[in-house]
């Protein structure tokens, strides 16, 4: 068992999930509560990675973050190293690739909060940040959990973007899915079976733990015993 690849995969998924939630919560709130017509374009862009082949996304990111573009050269100067073929580059790729898996459940969850509750909070002086943190997030907690689980597991299992953008550098970009690919290429089916089993068990256990801890649905309206 390659524990280095296992630890790297966990680290990548954890960092990616944390960044995604920080981006997706305000983005989903903007999509649900905003009034601009441009929000349809924003939502389309946030959903685009869902329909793009991962290798296409990985290729674009590889070019964008590499030394061929001014942006890639600027990032390299800023960080002291190029993003392509590095752990940081994998994080960037994973965040973009898994963005729809974080945004979509949150959009659905926030949209299901009764507009009358949002109106009541606004009348009581809640600004946008308080509306999101004190009302939408607590009432859409299950969607937040779903977004975190999907983002985490999707990152654990991603392959195309990782291979295109990160290659196969042990301890830096070799994740479990890359390790599995290498094992199959080397006809080491026994090792590939163990790695696959770890990925499957890990996913099932993560889902089971989180869904077993979910809370009962809370009625959005007051006065159920009228």
């Amino acid at each position, binding site marked *: 068992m390659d524990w280095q690849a296992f630890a790297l995969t966990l680290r990548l998924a954890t960092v990616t999930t944390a960044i995604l939630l920080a981006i997706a919560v305000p983005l989903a709130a903007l999509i649900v509560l905003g009034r601009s*017509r441009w929000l349809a374009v924003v939502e389309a862009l946030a959903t685009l990675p869902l329909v793009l082949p991962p290798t296409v996304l990985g290729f674009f990111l590889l070019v964008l973050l590499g030394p061929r573009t001014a942006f890639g050269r600027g990032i390299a100067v800023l960080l002291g190293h190029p993003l392509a073929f590095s752990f940081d580059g994998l994080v960037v790729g994973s965040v973009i690739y898994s963005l729809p898996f974080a945004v979509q459940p949150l959009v659905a969850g926030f949209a299901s909060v009764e507009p009358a509750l949002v*109106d009541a909070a*606004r*009348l*009581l002086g809640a600004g946008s940040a308080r509306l999101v943190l004190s009302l939408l997030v607590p009432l859409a907690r299950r969607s937040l959990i779903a977004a975190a689980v999907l983002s985490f597991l999707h990152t654990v299992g991603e392959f195309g973007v990782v291979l295109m953008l990160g290659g196969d550098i042990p301890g830096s970009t070799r994740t479990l899915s890359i390790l599995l690919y290498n094992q199959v290429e080397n006809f080491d089916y026994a090792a590939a079976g163990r790695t696959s089993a770890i990925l499957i068990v890990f996913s099932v256990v993560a889902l089971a733990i989180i869904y077993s801890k979910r809370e009962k649905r809370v*009625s959005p309206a*007051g*006065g159920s015993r009228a």
Partner: protein
Amino acid sequence: MLELALDVRRGSFHLQVECRFASEWTVVFGPSGAGKSTLLRLLAGLDRAHQDEPVRGRVAFEGDTLTDTARGLWLHPGHRQTALVTQQPSLFPHLSVAANIAFGLRHLDHAARAARVQHMLELVDAVELTDRRPQDISGGQAQRIALARALATGPRLLLLDEPFSALDGAASDALLDRLQLWLRQRRVQTVLATHDITDALATNAEVLFLREGRQSALGPANEVLASERKRLLAHLSAT
């Protein structure tokens, strides 16, 4: 004084109102669908603009402009010192009754907030509900708490959209009496929307009669509602 001049279209519905409410207590009376709730939401600043059906008009209260579409001015609902209580209590289900009432009191320190919550619970006669969750109280109790939550922020203008519909007659009358006294002491101007003529007559207020989005009459209750009152009395004597 509340001044309004509104011209709003919602599909086939057209609300057109231009008037001044000078009385401390004004009743917006009209049948269902007359535009009472739409009017109150516009006064509260909740219906800013629908994508293809923009709000046009002006709302001013005590000389302060709250909405003026000609100048692109629209004050956030939370900055209007206006409270709106509707038929649907819309209590936050994840918060206790006390936390619901305290939601708009973040600017107060803990002791002042607790004191204000206690005072509001006493006003609506619901002290025993402090720690209960909205899903564990009745519809009538939820309406009382919604009223307490709205009044806790100390509004200058109170908008009531049939907020006592879940209370029985005696409880509703008692609460209304206490509420009127409390509001008069604090000089809170109130606009009550109702389709119930007894509610409109009971308050002896200035009445705006709305029919299909247009103002039919504005004046003292006994004048504006004289024909409706006759119709009601004739109906009662016939039965």
